């Protein structure tokens, strides 16, 4: 349901479930556990494998934004489809978290060149 890579200060979070009240809670626990263990400040969410998200996902993202903010970091989102973009805009999330067409674009906002350096992998 979730793949996590870390690269320096950036954690790449790739969920692969429909994000609703049921899954959001499990995602929250797994992401927070990984983030707390890491030295990361930033999270990039790759939505390429997410086919559905409701406002539970918005709540989950705002919560993770607050976690990153505590370390002086931020969040970026990538690969949101048209359906998810609508929710992203309507919810007002667009005002606090930026969205990018690709994961590479999102990672590039936090690291100079994401192609450099190896990623550490973890699955949940």
């Amino acid at each position, binding site marked *: 349901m979730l793949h996590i890579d870390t690269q320096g200060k950036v954690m790449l979070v790739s969920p692969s479930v429909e994000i*609703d009240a049921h899954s959001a809670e499990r995602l929250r626990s797994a992401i927070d556990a990984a983030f707390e263990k890491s030295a990361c400040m930033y999270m990039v969410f790759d939505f390429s494998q997410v086919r559905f998200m409701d406002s539970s996902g918005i709540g989950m993202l705002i919560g993770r934004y607050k976690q990153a903010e505590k370390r002086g970091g931020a969040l970026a989102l990538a690969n949101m489809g048209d*359906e998810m973009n609508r929710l992203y805009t309507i919810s007002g999330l667009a005002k606090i978290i930026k969205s990018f067409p690709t994961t590479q674009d999102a990672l590039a906002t936090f690291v100079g060149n994401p192609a450099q350096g190896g990623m550490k992998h973890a699955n949940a």
Partner: protein
Amino acid sequence: MQTHNEGKNKTVLEMESRSCNVSLARVMVAAFIAPVDPDVMELSDIKTAVSEAVTNAIIHGYGEDEAHIVRMTLTLSGRLLTVEVTDNGIGITDIAGAREPLFTTLPELERSGLGFTVMESFMDTVDVISTPGVGTTVTMTKDIKSNGAEHGA
């Protein structure tokens, strides 16, 4: 299951108030409206609104107590979909407040307070009838306009 030759159909789903059943409600509405060929955006809008209404019933109506029943009634009249979601939970004391964006009684659960905002944005009409201590019924309608130019899952 589907008899749409008369342009009218109705089905009722009763589910235990478990969050895992929210996805079941989404699958159900998607299958129910398949005969009128919604496009990808209409399908996504309806599934999202249903997800919000059923989640509200489980989390707010029943406070995540899984021993209760949420009832979803789907009616299709021509291309007009009506979704009614009913719980017999605590009810809403401040309906106008609950419909305000970012209103939530459960910030510690990271609820965004956007459930009704999403329902109102994605459906044509949203009506809420609630009696404290008795329960809540949310009724939403949407006219499915497209003729399925693009199909979604």
